[in-house]
């Protein structure tokens, strides 16, 4: 393999690439360089990356199994829509929209904290049950709130999710989760997956690790939901169901558990797949879970499972030069 692939590029190169990418997003937006369909798919890709990498924190790095991510999306989507339509609708989107997204993320993060607390009491499979119950509660809860449109949905959300905002949030999510993963908390989260008893015996505060994973994961799930709401401009509770959660699960287990590069890969592959399968209608929802089952049978860790694209790894994690043989 080529050398640059094995080592992260110099910091300057990375920053330049990032700046160029963001500039490109801005240019595309400003000068209408691509048609609406491509723009829509690109934004979807960004949202999917956020969803995938954030769920990966709990399901991949921590090795638990949550099916509730669509619920966090829903919380983020609805609260941000309330902020941007009902409460701060008069504001300039330039400051109002980030505020709405943050609010959505924070609500999701706060509820994620509660779910994390519940997860202390129960063992592995029970967490799946808890997240499932959470998903159903969010869905039927929203259906019973007329203020946000009940089962008919929330209409008239502004089209604020631009390509640039999506790119900014995507980069922010990847950066924050990478920093977390390569910190003592990230190692604690992984230790919980590897062997919770040994982790405890080695001084890992597994409760704190679990809470960190849940809060961060659900926060970004909420952020993705907020972006999603302001992309579609119409949301209803039915959108955030178990199928939506399954889609995110497919991304995670396709791209690879415990991997940032894998999350991007999984999100990209899924986004393309979803577009290709569009004409199939409901059969699409047969093929997606089938892929999930086949993945579990033949490649349970996904394409990049627990391996990382070196560009995402902090430089300090590589062996020092003089130690090389």
């Amino acid at each position, binding site marked *: 393999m080529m050398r640059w692939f094995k080592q992260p590029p110099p910091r300057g190169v990375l920053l330049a690439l990032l700046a160029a990418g963001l500039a490109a997003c801005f240019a595309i937006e400003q000068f209408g360089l691509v048609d609406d369909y491509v723009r829509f798919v690109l934004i979807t890709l960004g949202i999917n990356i956020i969803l995938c990498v954030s769920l990966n924190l709990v399901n991949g790095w921590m090795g638990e199994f949550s099916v509730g991510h669509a619920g966090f999306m829903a919380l983020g989507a609805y609260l941000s829509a309330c902020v941007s339509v009902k409460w701060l609708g008069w504001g300039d989107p330039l400051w109002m929209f980030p505020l709405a997204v943050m609010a959505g993320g924070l609500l999701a993060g706060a509820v994620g904290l509660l779910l994390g607390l519940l997860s202390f009491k129960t063992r592995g499979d029970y967490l799946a049950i808890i997240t499932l119950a959470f998903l159903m509660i969010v869905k039927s809860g929203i259906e019973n709130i007329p203020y946000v449109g009940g089962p008919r949905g929330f209409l008239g959300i502004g089209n604020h999710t631009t390509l640039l905002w999506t790119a900014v949030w995507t980069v922010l999510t990847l950066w*924050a989760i990478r*920093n977390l993963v390569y*910190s003592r908390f990230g*190692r604690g989260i992984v230790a919980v997956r590897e062997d919770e008893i*040994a982790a405890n015996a080695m001084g*890992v505060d*597994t*409760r704190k690790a679990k809470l960190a994973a849940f809060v961060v994961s659900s926060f970004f799930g909420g952020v993705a939901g907020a972006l999603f709401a302001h992309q579609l401009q119409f949301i209803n509770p039915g959108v955030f169901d178990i199928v939506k959660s399954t889609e995110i699960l497919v991304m995670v287990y396709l791209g690879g558990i415990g991997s940032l590069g894998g999350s991007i890969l999984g999100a990209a592959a899924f986004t393309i797949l979803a577009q290709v399968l569009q004409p199939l209608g409901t059969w699409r929802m047969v093929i997606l879970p089938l892929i999930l089952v086949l993945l579990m049978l033949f490649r349970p860790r996904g394409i990049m499972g627990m391996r990382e694209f070196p560009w995402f790894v902090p430089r*300090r994690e590589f*062996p020092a030069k003089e130690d090389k043989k």
Partner: protein
Amino acid sequence: MSALLEVRDVTMRFGGLVAVADLNLEVTQGHAHGIIGPNGAGKTTAFNVITGIYTPTAGDVLFRGEIISGRRPSAIARGGIARTFQNIRLFRDLTVLDNVRIAHDAHARYSWPGAMVQLPSARRAEQESIEHCTDLLEKFGLVDAAYERAGDLPYGSQRRLEIARAMALQPSLLLLDEPAAGMNSAETLKLVEFLGWLRDHFSVTMLLIEHHMQLVMTFCDRITVLDFGKTIAEGSPDEVRNDPKVIEAYLGQEDGHE
């Protein structure tokens, strides 16, 4: 000399089974204290109680004069008690270095929001952890394998790594559960040497479970003998060796099982 660890009348019951019955144990600072006893005597269970994995059904565990039973295992570990496991429990999918770092992290201070935005303090702590742990691996002769997957190491190195990981916690008391398991006599001899080095170099107090009599008799300052969850003898190696009850327990076991 004061007792570093004190186990007072500890009983551990699982349903109807009494795994540890009224155990009393005092481990003196600086000693290497051995626990021996036939299979199923409750030795590992005693470790699990001391390290907080189980909360004792009755009795207290005191460390430096403070009651620690009932605290969470991670708090006990950070308080200065590290251990190894009878069946090696490494973080198999992680690198050797990360295994050690996870234990070392117990003493890091930065917060998780701080880590997420890469505060300088978090970065410095990370850098320090890599350097410190690399040094530690160097001492344990594992530095060449630092970036290998822990599960890929040969058995002997895995055992050594488990001890290195425990030492990364910077404990004042180290619990070793059958460190010589699966070793031949040449390897066991080396292990005695290694344990001696460990004790002197880190000046750590040790409590170790071992079936290998020669190791226990040569290495330990004091020995406690368990049978059916009860202490049947305690004393210096010589005292224990000549205790009729111990001989009976071991002979009895041989009659029964071999």
